[in-house]
């Protein structure tokens, strides 16, 4: 994937999120969400919220919903491992929690340390009742984003937009 491709899909995804009313972009930095967060920084109504650890973002999503706001949690797949206990808010409180997970440890991964958490992403999502919407090819992005937004903000579910390494491109380390 070239930088231009990344700019293009990040901008499409960002526009969808803004259109759906998302204003708080909680995140731990990752190559996969870097452009999205730059767009949030540049937008006059969006607010990026840098986290010390990913589970904080699940709580921000719940807190924003209590007062009628909308938030999203953007993170690398490793960070999902920090989240399960906080994802109790999905089954326990019916909070609309939207995750954007950029994958490591799947297709084409060269770092063996990335595989344990990467391969645990789908089982963890399933165990905590978070629906998974995977993006493998560029043409998946649009429908998966629409479906994840509907599941989170119209149906009140936990939803994860999972950006695979087949889509993002595997890193060389």
């Amino acid at each position, binding site marked *: 994937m070239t930088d231009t491709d990344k700019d293009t899909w990040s901008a499409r995804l960002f526009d969808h999120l803004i259109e759906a009313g998302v204003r708080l972009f909680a995140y731990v930095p990752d190559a996969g969400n870097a452009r999205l967060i730059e767009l949030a920084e540049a937008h006059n109504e969006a607010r990026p919220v840098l986290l*010390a650890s990913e589970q904080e973002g699940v709580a921000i999503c719940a*807190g924003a*919903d209590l007062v009628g706001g909308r938030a999203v949690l953007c993170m690398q797949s490793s960070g999902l491992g920090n989240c399960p206990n906080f994802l109790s808010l999905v089954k326990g409180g019916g909070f609309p929690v939207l995750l954007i997970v950029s994958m490591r440890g799947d297709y084409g991964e060269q770092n063996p340390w990335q595989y344990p958490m990467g391969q645990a992403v789908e089982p963890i999502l399933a165990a905590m009742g978070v629906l998974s919407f995977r993006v493998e090819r560029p043409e998946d992005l649009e429908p998966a984003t629409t479906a994840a937004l509907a599941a989170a903000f119209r149906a009140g579910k936990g939803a994860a937009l999972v950006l695979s390494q087949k889509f993002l491109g595997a890193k060389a380390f």
Partner: protein
Amino acid sequence: MTSGRAETYPLRRREVVARLVADRGELLVVGGLGAPSWDLTAAGDHPLTFPLWGAMGGAAMIGLGLALARPTRRVLVVTGDGEMLMGLGALATIAVQAPANLAVVVLDNERYGETGMQATHTAGPTNLGAVAAGAGFPVVGDIFDQAQLEAALPRIRAEPGPVFFNIKVRAEDLPLVLPPKDGVHLKDRFRAALLGPAAIE
């Protein structure tokens, strides 16, 4: 049961929390898992109090979500030392965002109250006020007695923050006063009270 200095602290948690939420006006309240939520319920169950039954370590961050998404309303997080210790990174995240409308109050009895009153780190050398100050909170205080509490109350309710107060309270095993357990109900009643009935349709 661990014995120690906390059994002699003068402030009693139920009385402290009753003061924190007295004449609450438009205050939005988040209760941390365990005793702080029971204390809030004992002070009067309220639709604009969200008591946590899980997600230990998340109370302050739920408060940040409220504060950022609703900057015109004062938000008060009331949690315990064990709960706060589980999410110390949140203090840095909050300080960086610097919401003026958020106050975090820790009822520090130096114990894990729900599991048998085992000691937390604050029974030892750990000072949560110092952690909050180090994280970058602009308004931080430690409270040990009634006079300090009275002086802090208006600051907790109104001082531009984020505000952090650590209140040393007596380690005591109190009768349970439980809020409703259904999380969807707790969420829906909060949203309906704040946003109107259309918010839960």
